[in-house]
């Protein structure tokens, strides 16, 4: 299918220069690539800039209420597992008001493709700090800087036993599309964290990697089965250092070092995935931030299991209709 088939007739109203424009295009491309027909594709969102996305996609869509997209998407997918269900959410919608639904859709491993737009700010309510804003962040609701510790979404995903985590950047279209496609192919809850720029309230928040010059040096795009190599000259690699006490540390080594790791997104044990996802946060310039599909593990999806159990019980049971059910009651004639 073509990306244009997934474009709705609505005028896209993201601010000029907003990273969401790129994510919207990436979504249309990814949907075209996986080619689930528009009438079998559902996009659910909560509230926020990210949650406007369904309006711009020519699929079934539902722009719901703040924070609840995860629960509503769970209802759609569980009741109709044959549908391809996407959830559009942001750092406020997903990690603050919708936090409970987020961890439980991950715990249950509902087969959803969750695009988490992280711009580290509340945009639609005009500029308050969010659960991912760095400590000390000055905003309208934190005029003296926040005193809160932020969430790192990946850490929360692993804590909730997530089976798929990818991270991408609004300005990196190929990686974004690839993460979305892989997220779709993964059976279970797939979280695709999209680092997006809010041009109005938090401009440049991801500049340290969004900037082309810096990106090659400060980020690594992980690919399953490939060596963990990065840098403008592809001269650096990631390795585990066992010399720093009991817990091994990820370190940057020369690309030709034999210790350079090969990425395996499918290991059930999340330890290394977590280490990779936690690299290069905040002001840590010693390590790159990991992009691409970091974790991609197959486990039974909730929606599949629920439907399977119903089918099994139904097959075994003698009573399948209301009249058969009532016939089994203790009853008498009056």
């Amino acid at each position, binding site marked *: 299918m073509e990306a244009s088939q997934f474009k709705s007739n609505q005028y896209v109203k993201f601010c000029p220069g907003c990273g969401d424009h790129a994510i919207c295009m990436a979504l249309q491309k990814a949907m075209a690539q996986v080619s689930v027909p528009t009438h079998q594709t559902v996009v659910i969102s909560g509230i926020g800039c990210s949650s406007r996305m369904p309006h711009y996609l020519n699929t079934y869509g539902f*722009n719901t209420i703040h924070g609840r997209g995860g629960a509503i998407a769970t209802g759609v997918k569980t009741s109709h597992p044959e549908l391809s269900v996407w959830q559009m959410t942001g750092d406020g919608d997903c990690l603050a008001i919708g936090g*409970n639904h987020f961890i439980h859709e991950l715990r249950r491993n509902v087969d959803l493709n969750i695009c988490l737009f992280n711009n580290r700010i509340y945009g639609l309510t005009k500029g308050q700090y969010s659960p991912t804003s760095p400590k000390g962040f000055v905003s309208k609701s934190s005029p003296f800087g926040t005193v809160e510790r932020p969430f790192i979404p990946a850490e929360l995903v692993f804590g909730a036993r997530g089976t798929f985590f990818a991270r991408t950047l609004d300005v990196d279209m190929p990686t974004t599309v690839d993460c979305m496609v892989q997220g779709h192919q993964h059976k279970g809850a797939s979280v695709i964290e999209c680092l997006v720029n809010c041009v109005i309230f938090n401009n440049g928040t991801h500049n340290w990697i969004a900037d082309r010059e810096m990106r090659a040096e400060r980020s690594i795009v992980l690919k399953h089965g490939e060596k963990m190599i990065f840098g403008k000259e592809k001269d650096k690699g990631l390795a585990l250092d066992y010399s720093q006490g009991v817990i091994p540390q990820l370190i940057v080594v020369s690309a030709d070092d034999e210790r350079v790791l090969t990425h395996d997104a499918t290991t059930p044990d999340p330890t290394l995935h977590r280490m990779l996802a936690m690299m290069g946060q905040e002001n840590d310039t010693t390590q790159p931030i990991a992009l691409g599909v970091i974790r991609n593990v197959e486990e039974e999806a909730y929606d599949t299991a629920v439907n399977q159990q119903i089918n099994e019980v139904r097959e075994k049971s003698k009573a399948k209709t*209301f009249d058969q059910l009532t016939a089994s009651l*203790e009853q008498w004639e009056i």
Partner: protein
Amino acid sequence: MQKQHVVVRFCGDSGDGMQLTGTMFSSLSAILGNEISTLPDFPAEIRAPQGTLGGVSGFQVQLGTGVYTPGDQADVIVAMNAAALKVCALGSKFNQKGAQWEEKESMFKRDAVIIVDTDSLSAKDLEKALYQTDNPFTELGIPESVQIIPVALTQLTKEALKDMGLDNKSVLKSRNMFALGLVCWLFNRPVDKAVSFLEGKFQKKPQLIAPNVKVLTDGFNYGQNLAMNIQTMNVEKSNELPKGTYTSIAGNKATAWGLIAAAEKCGKRLFLGSYPITPATDIMHELAARKDMGVMVVQAEDEIAGVCTAIGAAFAGDLAATSTSGPGLSLKGEAIGLAVMAELPLVVIDVQRGGPSTGLPTKTEQTDLMQAIYGRNGECPAVVLAASSSANCFDYAYEAAKIALENMTPVVLLTDTYLANGTGLWRIPQLSELPEIKPQGVLEEHTGQYNPALRDERGVRYWAYPGMEGYEHRNIGLERDTKLGTISTNPENHQQMVLARQAKIDQVANRIPLLQVQGNANSDTLLIGWGSTEGHLHAAANELGCALAHFNYINPLPKNTEEVLSKYKRLIVCELNSGQFAGYLRSKIEGLHIEQYNEMTAQPFAVDRIVKAVNN
């Protein structure tokens, strides 16, 4: 002794199996042709300390003919221990030092028969139940007109089972069967009926049949050999019920089955999103067990997710429901608003309990009426129904599903603890005799042109859902354009949409039954009620010789409401709150002059109190 109806109360420690004994006796009576109405009354604690006042669990049943309620006060009491005896004698004053039997407080009548386990009246038992003396009957001031049947229940049960090789704990657990046997004798129930009933009950635990049958039979025989002058009672068979096949059913189960029937009738899958909350959880239990009927239940992470998963399933084309109680309804408010705005069919069941806040989770009240009608932001009309008996929870759950699917709206169904846990006789319907349900669909001409603002001539929007090719659309909780279905902030458009949402609910009045008056329609006085109080009000109206208008349809009201009410000089709205329905009626009918009778005790009405209040 021949009786039209009698009230029996089984009362014991929460571990004594009183709910089971009561349920068995009720079902047995129903099988033998009595009408029944039951009221379980158990403490909130799962297991309070044994023998204490806080741990007393009761089960009351009225049986006979012309039975509308579980009865105000008992004719027969089975008290399994000292604490139970005290609670029954003193009613709500059981905790007051030095309190004595009073007719208006007591759970039993002045001429009641009390079967009491004398083995459970030892000094230690009396101390646990906070008695001051060693003679409980005198201390409680139980009048002499009450006939006491002292039975060494524990000892007799032990003797009955001495050759069965059971451990002491299992033996003690069978005491309730001895009591049941005695009650069967007291009411001239053929013991073989009770035995075969027991056998059916323990089908899955056959090792329990023989000991229970033995104790039951011994209890029955003990009664026959009682060297006391106790008159046994014959209770009249029902002569009011229409012919048919009956079972006894609790309100929560009936509610669940109403939804199951509706789903099958219209060929949709039933989806329940819910979160455990007393006293609604049994609905979820029942539906979770009905995977054989294809029912899907999601036990969500919270109340909000309960309703939201249901909204997701409704968006995807299912018959979707959520079940909760008052606190949960508060949490669901915003999402119900979304379903109103998105115009999706949704059944919301609120099994009301004592509030506000956590309130009295195991008690009954009619205090969520305003919340059900108005408890959402914006002008947010939804249909509100109320069931009025345990059995008709089935009918109104079915009706709620039908109205939701045919009118693309959330429907709030109000039941309460009293209906949910109580049981009554239910005539089992065949699916074929239930009214047709025609869920709203789309028109073929909408293919490629569909949007979620398209409405039929009734003002009900057409329903397309994922999987339908050519009907892709975006639904929203934001205000939508009346024509395009897309987001709109246009002022006139909003006004039109507010009116359209209201008009859609109003037109439901065209398809609901007119209000019927019960009792003496020619009286000057009209009692008015809604929901679970119908039985009590019906019985009160009969005693008073007045009329009763009872409402199951709250929003919209039946079309003839004003006309019916205008025929009576004296209107008295009776409800278990401080006047919510009275206030609602006043807001709907200008210049309406009504009196109120309100109880806020988190207990069901007593017929007697209503009659007294109206006569005063």
